[in-house]
């Protein structure tokens, strides 16, 4: 078991290194750097001025060397500006009087400076991850129980009417990407001219113009059902269908097992058979699926945060990517890759623990 975990962690680190290098390479392509230079200094620079700006800001070295600096395994670049002031990767924003360290990369805890937010990356990242954490928490609270109940109900009696209705629902939700369901939800529940809000307003059942709020900006100060309900529903809906289908498949498989038939023939009530004999075995597979669902949720988070203007991780990612904020993008990709790989690891380990039929040496 220990060797298995260690090996997986080794592969994880290798994957993370390769992926961050790919992101680093793509964000540091010459046209991207030129765009960065023009947005940082002046939009009307000549090519020669761009080159000198890049040189004086440490972009003149090879990509590999700068990746090493970012990582913190190579010493940060140093240089002098035209007026003789010393500059360098590690010199920026060091309180006066302190000696700057020679290594300042991710390994030293220095994530760099965000050019879009004009703040250290670590601060922006911490704040946005906090916002997204709440979103994810509520999505999980809504999604996991709902999808498991739906899946178990429809898998309990394969081919019954309940099963057909719930399966159709599940297929419909997996066919509805977040940007579609979000739009439809807003039109239905948060539009002053369409959907149910005008009607509710006329009947005097709601005070505001709309039932739900179409943006989640106010949710960053205080969560309420009315400003957070739609984003959570939008993300959860896409996952519900998928997890419910997996649970259903697992449940139908368990229900055809010999021990279920034996229990039924002994005269155990159907209720008891489902609750005591089937449920535990049927929930092993969905656990893996839920864990592997995290990377998908990440996609949903990006779309929903953009749609509802909620300034979390996804929104930050879009801002950083749209403006080629290299340090921010790298930090975002590290977080994203970390989430994907850790959930994979947890799902593998959890599967081994939950399923008594698998034992690793």
């Amino acid at each position, binding site marked *: 078991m220990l060797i298995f975990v260690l090996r997986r962690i080794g592969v994880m680190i290798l994957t993370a290194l390769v992926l961050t290098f790919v992101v680093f390479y793509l964000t540091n392509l010459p046209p991207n750097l030129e*765009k960065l230079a023009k947005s940082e200094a002046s939009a009307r620079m000549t090519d020669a001025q761009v080159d000198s700006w890049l040189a004086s800001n440490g972009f003149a070295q090879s990509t590999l060397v700068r990746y090493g600096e970012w990582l913190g395994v190579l010493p940060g670049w140093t240089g002098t500006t035209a007026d003789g002031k010393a500059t360098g990767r590690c010199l920026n924003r060091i309180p006066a009087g302190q000696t700057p360290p020679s290594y300042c990369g991710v390994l030293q805890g220095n994530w760099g400076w965000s050019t879009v937010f004009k703040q250290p990356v670590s601060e922006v990242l911490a704040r946005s991850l906090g916002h997204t954490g709440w979103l994810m928490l509520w999505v999980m609270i809504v999604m996991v129980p709902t999808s498991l109940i739906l899946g178990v109900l429809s898998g309990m009696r394969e081919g019954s009417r309940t099963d057909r209705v719930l399966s159709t629902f599940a297929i419909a939700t997996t066919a509805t990407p977040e940007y579609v369901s979000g739009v439809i939800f807003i039109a239905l529940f948060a539009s002053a001219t369409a959907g149910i809000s005008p009607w509710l307003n006329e009947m005097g059942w709601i005070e505001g113009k709309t039932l739900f709020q179409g943006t989640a900006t106010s949710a960053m100060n205080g969560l309420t059902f009315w400003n957070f309900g739609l984003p959570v529903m939008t993300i959860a809906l896409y996952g519900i269908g998928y997890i419910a289908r997996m649970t259903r498949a697992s449940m139908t498989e368990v229900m055809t097992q010999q021990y279920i038939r034996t229990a039924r023939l002994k005269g155990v009530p159907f209720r008891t058979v489902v609750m005591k004999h089937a449920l535990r075995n049927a929930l092993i597979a969905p656990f893996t699926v839920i864990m592997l669902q995290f990377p998908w949720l990440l996609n949903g988070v990006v779309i929903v945060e953009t749609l509802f203007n909620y300034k979390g991780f996804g929104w930050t990612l879009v801002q950083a990517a749209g403006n080629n904020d290299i340090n921010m993008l790298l930090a975002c990709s590290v977080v994203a890759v970390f989430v*994907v790989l850790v959930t994979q690891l947890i799902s593998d380990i959890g599967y081994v623990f939950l399923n008594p039929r698998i034992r690793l040496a």
Partner: protein
Amino acid sequence: MENLSWTGATGPFLVPVITIAAVVLAVAVAGRILVSLAAWATGTAAQTASGPVLMARPRGLGRTLDLVAQVAIGLILLAILLIALAGFILPVQSKGIIGWATLRFWPVWAALIVTFTLSIRFKRRLGLYGKLMDSPVGMVGLGIVLFWVFTAIFASAIITQDPLGQLSGMKNVMPGSVVKNPTEGAFAWYLFGGDHLARDVFSRMVMGAQRVLQIAPAATVFAFMVGVTLGLPAGYFGGKLDTLLSFLANLVLAFPVILLFYLLVTPEMVQTGIPMYFAAVLFLFPVIFFAVLFNSRFKTNPPRRNLYVGVTLLLGLWAYTGLAFNADPIRYLIGRPIFSMDPNMLNVFVSVVFVNSPGVFRIVRGLVMDIKARDYVAAGQTRGESPWYIMLWEILPNARGPLIVDFCLRIGYTTILLGTLGFFGLGVSPESPDWGSTINAGRKLLSMFPHPAVVPAVALMSLVLGLNLLADGLREESLKD
């Protein structure tokens, strides 16, 4: 000329019918659930066992409620059908929006009726496709998918206005608004309203179908070529090759799709020419696939082998130079290329193929590892057949069931991906009528004017739903073999 209502002249009779039936349906469904819960609580459910597991047989009150619900659903569908059909019969002024839209789609209905009549008539001779006609789910799915396919084919006959034309005074107008100062002979309404640039939402949705159905299936085919060509040897040979390819596939899969799109699908990326390198690698796989396919089959018959492989290489490499490098040699002869791709389009296409192929690779690899343990593979090896012959002509045909199902699902997924790209405004021109960018354009005024975003959203959802249902039907029918 006045603004249209949704239902037209049939509305006053049929809308109350729908309302009443809907209320009855809601009551019946709620009652049915309560009855089942009561039966569950008292433990009387599922006494009779039929089929592999325990089936409930509704009796008494539950049965009556079922009947009521079915009648209500039937009534609602009938009323909607009547409203739609009224579009064919009623005079111009009394047609509703739904009636007009149904009428405008007439080539699609005609094509659908012909297709389904022929398919059902000859279903016993049509293999898996014919069997689909036995599964209601599959038929509904196929119907929806074909609806959009025919819409894309007949798009120019269906549209009512120029999809790029901006008419004055039609900004954000409600569905069914009459065109102000119409030109002679032009269609007099904006059926599904106008968008923020005063363009016709209906026509843009129809043209959007064309855009989506041009890219999504083609990108999926290319992803399958890449996935199959790499997945077969990885699963069959195993070893170091498998380890390396699987690591690379997992690498791409671990990348958040949106981040990848934001990095790859940018104007700067087109400048660097990186999409062209991607295309150079990815577009080579179909050529390799077919060349190896024919080579392994006709190796014992050199003249035929040379003919097939030669034709494949000639056509394949010709298309390859045109598509990947925009250097179709024909251009130097007749002045314009036959195979060419707009650089932005190429970038979108390549990114979507790149994101999709590792998934295909994993599925193919898994299937091959399963199938290669079968006796017929061992028999082929004993006969001395070449590994590629076994992979391509013995293993691949036997893996077709799951692959066809995955193909359908993956077209849907690709459609979603393309929509995502449009939603973030990546890689497409703002003029483009494709559904993703239309949703993106419409979402800014969503709470005031929902229709410009909702119409393409529903269209996209229905296409993906159709593909998923089709895949479900295919899975069901292929398991019956």
